[in-house]
């Protein structure tokens, strides 16, 4: 199917009353959780996933994706007005966004964040639409050894970019790998780490780990008393929100930079939207004619990262939909969602499910327009959410999490697991362990083990099957990336890329 007819079909799907409504719900919900600090897209999507079983999958996917990219729009509002990131991907927006707001330019900062998000977000969708179908054709030639090498490379990137401490990221991933190994082994029908419990024969459900670590853990961490931050007011009237013509001209390069860097980083496993926003901010600063203004309220410092984190969405969906490989916590949950609904993300996905793929793409065009409206004229309404007290919000999140897990298979054992992983997630936050490697270790580790053993079954136990061209390049890169941090210069560079204070 060519792109044009695909897109036509997609708009037919996305513009049906039901799917349009799902798109609106998704982006509004996304904006809300984007604005609210302490509740992110992985937590929200994980929490809502069990409740989408009864929905028609295309609509449900449109909604969950809406939450995913909608949150990236909303996150900047909090960064600019409160100097607290609404989302981790909006951390860097705090730097210049908040300075602009302090200097009385909150309006143009908010406006520019929305406009840049729209431009780059739309670029991301266009690129996704152009790149994914041909890549899916190529990836049909990928066999188990190629997949294994991709997973190893992906996990290496995750560990490398998850946080300042490599050891902590590595440990977190190992716990994920361990959980992935639980249950009945597909290849030998042997039980592993079941502790004699029937409930563990099927392994631990990824969704429970995700809801526990992300949603419950986040709630527990947020319940600790924090110093209230002072919120700057949103200027009244649409005119006061619009950046000046001069601002737009200054941001020309930032739009391109954000779009391209965001999309490319998105495709890369492990490096999520937070890193995309930091990279594009760094590039923007490096090429600027007046780098001294960065940190003092340079509008490019808002445009570039906000663009990058939105273009990242399109990029991240490429490996998810064509290879079935997620690169971040949120896409890992989207993968679980697709599998639960009975789809098979992978090389055949676009061909087998054209309505879902093109419907999703079309809904993202619509969603980006909706988000521009939500985040320009209506930004003041959403900013009011920041006044919502914790005692109203946190019980709600816990309630939805518990109901969601229980309705899936009405089992108290699973609720116990949820509680355990919630506490574990909280402890990880307190001890400064990154949670993404755990979740990705769980998802990718399972796939990685299977790919390795399939490879060896195909070659009758000969490991040289992993030395085919693509796997050997990827495995070589992974080794280099792991050895790299042993050298001071490389490690300093790595820390600089991910360092949130930079």
């Amino acid at each position: 199917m060519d792109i044009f007819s695909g897109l036509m079909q997609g708009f037919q799907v996305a513009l049906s009353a039901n799917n349009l409504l799902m798109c609106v719900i998704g982006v509004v919900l996304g904006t809300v959780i984007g604005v609210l600090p302490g509740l992110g897209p992985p937590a929200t999507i994980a929490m809502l996933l069990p409740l989408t079983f009864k929905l028609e999958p295309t609509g449900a996917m449109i909604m969950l994706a809406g939450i995913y990219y909608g949150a990236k729009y909303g996150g900047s509002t909090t960064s600019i007005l409160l100097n607290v990131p609404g989302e981790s991907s909006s951390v860097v927006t705090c730097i210049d966004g908040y300075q602009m707001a302090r200097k009385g330019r909150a309006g143009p900062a908010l406006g520019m964040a929305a406009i840049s998000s729209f431009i780059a977000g739309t670029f991301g969708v266009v690129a996704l639409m152009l790149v994914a179908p041909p890549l899916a054709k190529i990836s049909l030639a990928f066999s188990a050894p190629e997949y294994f090498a991709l997973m190893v490379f992906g996990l290496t990137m995750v560990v490398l970019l998850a946080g300042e401490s490599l050891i902590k990221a590595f440990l977190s991933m190992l716990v994920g790998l361990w959980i992935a190994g639980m249950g009945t082994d597909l290849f030998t029908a042997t039980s592993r780490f079941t502790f004699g419990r029937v409930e563990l024969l099927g392994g631990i459900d990824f969704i429970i780990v995700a809801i526990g670590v992300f949603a419950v853990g986040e709630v527990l961490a947020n319940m600790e008393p924090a110093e209230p931050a002072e919120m700057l007011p949103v200027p009244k009237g649409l005119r006061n929100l619009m950046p000046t013509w001069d601002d737009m001209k200054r941001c020309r390069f930032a739009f391109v930079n954000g779009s391209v860097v965001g999309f490319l980083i998105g495709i890369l496993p492990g490096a999520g939207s937070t890193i995309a926003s930091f990279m594009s901010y760094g590039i923007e600063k490096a090429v600027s004619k007046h780098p001294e203004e960065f940190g003092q309220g340079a509008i490019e410092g808002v445009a570039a990262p906000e663009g990058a984190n939105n273009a990242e969405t399109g990029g991240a969906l490429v490996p998810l939909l064509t290879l079935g490989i997620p690169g971040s916590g949120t896409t890992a949950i989207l993968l679980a969602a697709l599998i639960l609904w009975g789809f098979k993300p992978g090389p055949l996905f676009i061909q087998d499910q054209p309505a879902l793929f093109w419907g999703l793409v079309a809904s993202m065009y619509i969603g980006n327009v909706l988000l521009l409206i939500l985040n320009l004229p209506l930004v003041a309404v959403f900013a009011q959410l920041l006044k919502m007290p914790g005692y109203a919000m946190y019980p709600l999140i816990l309630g939805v999490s518990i109901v969601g897990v229980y309705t899936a298979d009405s089992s108290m054992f699973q609720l116990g697991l949820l509680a355990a992983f919630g506490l574990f997630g909280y402890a990880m936050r307190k001890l400064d362990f990154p949670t993404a490697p755990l979740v990705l270790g769980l998802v990718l580790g399972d796939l990685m083990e299977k790919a390795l053993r399939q490879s060896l079954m195909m070659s009758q136990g000969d490991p040289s099957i992993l030395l085919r061209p693509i796997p050997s390049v990827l495995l070589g890169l992974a080794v280099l990336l792991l050895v790299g941090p042993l050298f001071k210069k490389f490690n300093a560079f790595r820390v600089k890329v991910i360092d949130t204070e930079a």
Partner: protein
Amino acid sequence: MSKFRTIHAIALSVAALLAVPAAHADWKPTKTVEVIVHTGPGGGNDVLGRAIANMMEKEKLLPVRMQVVNKPGGNGAVAAAAISEKKYDPHTIGLITSVWIAGPLTTSEAKITLHDLKPIAQLVREPAVIAVRADSRFKTLKEFIEAAKAKPGSLKQSGGSVTSRDNIVRLSLQHATGAKWAFVSFPGGGERVAALLGGHVDIMVIEPQEAGEQVRAGKLRVLAQLAEPRLAAYPDVPTLKEAGYDVTTTPQIRAVVAPPQMPADAAAYWEERFTKLHETPSWKKYLHDNQLEDAFLHAADLRKSIVETEKQLREQYQLAGIKTVR
């Protein structure tokens, strides 16, 4: 007065006791019936369970509603445990597949086996077909097996777990012919097909419906079918026997069971209701639409069939070197 009351009470209870057998004979469900399945929402038996609930309602076979309860995990072990916890309960039934027979054979954690539950009726047998890529050099199953004999281990089959039917078919064919080819496990059906379409494996056992889509798209060719007689959708494809391979392949079944010690009249009621359901046009249409084989068996025959299947599986596993625990 009080004496009279006691006598009265005794008389009543005697009457009640005497009335019991009569009441039992026409036991009827009085509240919502739970149908326990071992898959999550959208899984095979979940879908079948919901379809049965709809048909029972449409054909007015039950005075109450049926509600599907999902107890996924452990290849049926979690659901088996859930059913056995409902001992005596006439308002609970369960839907099983052959996985429930295979699971406990290899997993010691599965404490409850089908022998602990009460068989009600077998409903269907699931056929399968053996497929290769449309451009494969193998035009018949015989050509494939001869090639596998000529170069042992060089050909590959994609499939599910080692305990699955896919592998049993392979083991039986290997055993009967002396050919050898590799079995590569993939957790999802989509990956198995992708591996075949991508040319990474040579052959697979696949559901007739799924194969049909790929055949129509010109991507797969079907060499043989695991069905008896031939499926309506594959009139020109030989069955295994017709292809010259008269091997036992344990059939993939779906059946109804009940909790242990469900009262005999309730068990009889359910057996009778499913017999009725099996005769309805809705049911026939459902089987046709989903390319399932009608394989209705009454409780006594289902029990025999379970014992027989278990014996066959155990032998197959032992031949293949898969560790069995009971």
